[in-house]
């Protein structure tokens, strides 16, 4: 596991609170605004930051993240730009763990070795590559682990006890439980089901367990944070970005402020979840 991730979860455990993991797409709505957002996230309560690598065909994502990906691409964002965003951010923030999330083809096109080397240099801590299941571990996962980058794997309600060991074998950093059978941002997670899933996962792994895909607001995030080690929110955040844009899809004076206000609100929910 990356040192930053290990330190982050150790600190949270000591404080008996869950991590809040906001998601934004690298380069959405443009590189400068995205860089400002990134700068503001830790202060707004992000414990870990998940940054999307935009892709033309994001098959596991719902309309909000698809639109976010498309905005980033229209703004001319390349994979190298996302890595540069992270590298720039690291100048100001040496400690917040950063996870890159995306699909395999842009990485494959960039070159796996070159990508891993550049991601490592940029200060990336872990990778989520949605369309690389455990069956394709040799592609990226094994070389990433040997460089000390974490590979965070998605586990879904359809992943049964028999399959879990396969999925968890090369997982490191944390496990990402997909709380709904479906695409991002389309249904709400059922906190009772999530709680029992987290119990089931803990029988198979000692890694921290993050939950995402169906969390839209502070109250839902708080529910999840009572049982899980981290709550991930993506669609609600990129929707707030979208709603702040002008008619031509450009960032406005409200974009950063409103997005960070939402992040602050959800972070309060996550961080106060176990107080009472």
């Amino acid at each position, binding site marked *: 596991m990356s040192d930053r991730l290990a330190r982050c979860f150790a600190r949270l455990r000591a404080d008996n609170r869950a991590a809040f993991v906001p998601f934004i797409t690298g380069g959405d709505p443009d590189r400068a605004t995205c860089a400002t957002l990134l700068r503001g996230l830790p202060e707004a309560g992000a414990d870990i930051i998940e940054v999307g690598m935009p892709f*033309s065909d994001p098959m596991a994502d719902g309309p909000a993240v698809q639109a976010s990906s498309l905005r980033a691409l229209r703004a001319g964002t390349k994979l190298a730009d996302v890595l540069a965003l992270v590298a720039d951010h690291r100048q100001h923030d040496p400690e917040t763990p950063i996870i890159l999330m995306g699909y395999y083809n842009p990485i494959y096109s960039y070159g796996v070795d070159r990508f891993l080397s550049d991601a490592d240099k940029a200060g990336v801590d872990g990778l989520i590559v949605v*369309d690389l299941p455990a*069956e394709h571990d040799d592609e990226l996962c094994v070389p990433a682990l040997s460089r000390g980058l974490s590979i965070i794997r998605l586990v879904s309600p359809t992943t049964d006890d028999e399959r879990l060991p396969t999925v968890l074998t090369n997982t490191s950093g944390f496990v990402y439980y997909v709380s709904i059978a479906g695409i991002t941002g*389309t249904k709400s997670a059922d906190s009772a089901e999530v709680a029992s899933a987290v119990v089931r996962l803990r029988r198979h792994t000692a890694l921290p367990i993050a939950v995402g895909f169906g969390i839209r607001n502070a109250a839902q995030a708080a529910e999840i944070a009572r049982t899980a080690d981290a709550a991930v929110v993506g669609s609600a955040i990129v929707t707030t970005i979208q709603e702040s844009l002008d008619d031509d899809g450009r960032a406005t004076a409200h974009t950063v402020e409103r997005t960070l206000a939402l992040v602050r609100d959800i972070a309060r929910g996550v961080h106060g979840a176990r107080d009472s």
Partner: protein
Amino acid sequence: MTTANSFRTGPDENGNYGIFGGRFVAETLMPLILSVEKAWNIARSDAAFRAELDEYLRDYVGRPSPLYFAKRLTEHLGGAKVYFKRDELNHTGSHKINNCMGQILLARRMGKTRIIAETGAGQHGVATATVAALFGMPCIVYMGETDIARQQPNVFRMKLLGAEVRPVTSGSRTLKDAMNEALRDWVANVHDTFYIIGTVAGPHPYPEMVREFQSVIGREAREQMTEREGRLPDTLVACVGGGSNAMGLFHPFLDDKDVAIVGVEAAGKGIDTDAHAASLTRGRPGVLHGNRTYLLQDDDGQITEAHSISAGLDYPGIGPEHSWLKDQGRVSYVSATDAEALEAFQLCCKLEGIIPALEPSHALAHVMRMAPSLPADHIILMNMCGRGDKDVFTVAAAIGVSLE
């Protein structure tokens, strides 16, 4: 690169054809994909499954499809003998139903109760809606808005057959986006839904399974040609979009080294323009829709939009086995433009009384290029994989005829 002893043994147990193929899907789908593979492996060696499929293919689809000597076309071209494998005479008007019939029987064996599909030209959508109606199963067909506009007759056909056609408005609003949307539906409905993929692409076992269901074309053609001419053809020609009709014709002949095999991609406005669908000729290997294969993509690995006058060929990828056969050098892949396909379309109507679909019109365009310089005893077998009724509006618009 080593040359394979046989070209017919792939894929390996993980669905790889050399570096191509595989199972690049989200974890939510993996357990389901594995269960489809398990069910498929049991069914394929089950005599009862094959008997049931054969019966439907014979009595409902109308197989075997005829092998037809295109005499007037042959005389017109003045060279090689041209035969058509008449898969456009199948029920629903194309080869697509061969595969749909196989997959829906598998879905029933798996206890699935809801069918989804993607479609480009609408031929696969119509074939899927047809088998869903036959077995009384609800059916949702995802279709890009662009394709809905240019394939109205097929959209109406699907609705008549009881299917719901869901317009896809993301991306280029064509086949690739319809496939994204179908995969999203499947992820959200894994418990009761079977996804009938229409071509030899997608995660393993789909490329192999669709090939096996379509190989009935090549198996019949081998037998029919042997009976008719006392030997195998010299050259096979078929159009390739995703590549299912071509794989169906080619696969039984892959180890017949004297049979030349040619796949014809859609060159759209020309392969040197940015408006074509020639993924093998102009693409490079990448990962999309569950498999590694040749893809049209930009320098950053973003998938680019394909173009073809034929909605069925308008896809930026290609089945992974075709990618492997290209790299092995076993099949040569060429291309034909929109204009060449339109010319072939019209010639076939006039000379043979057959209105071909725009997809096989691309194959015919290549036949027209190659046949004149070949000797009279050279036999070309072309897969006439679909009929063109669905395309008459597109053709009218392209040649400047108003049907209003």
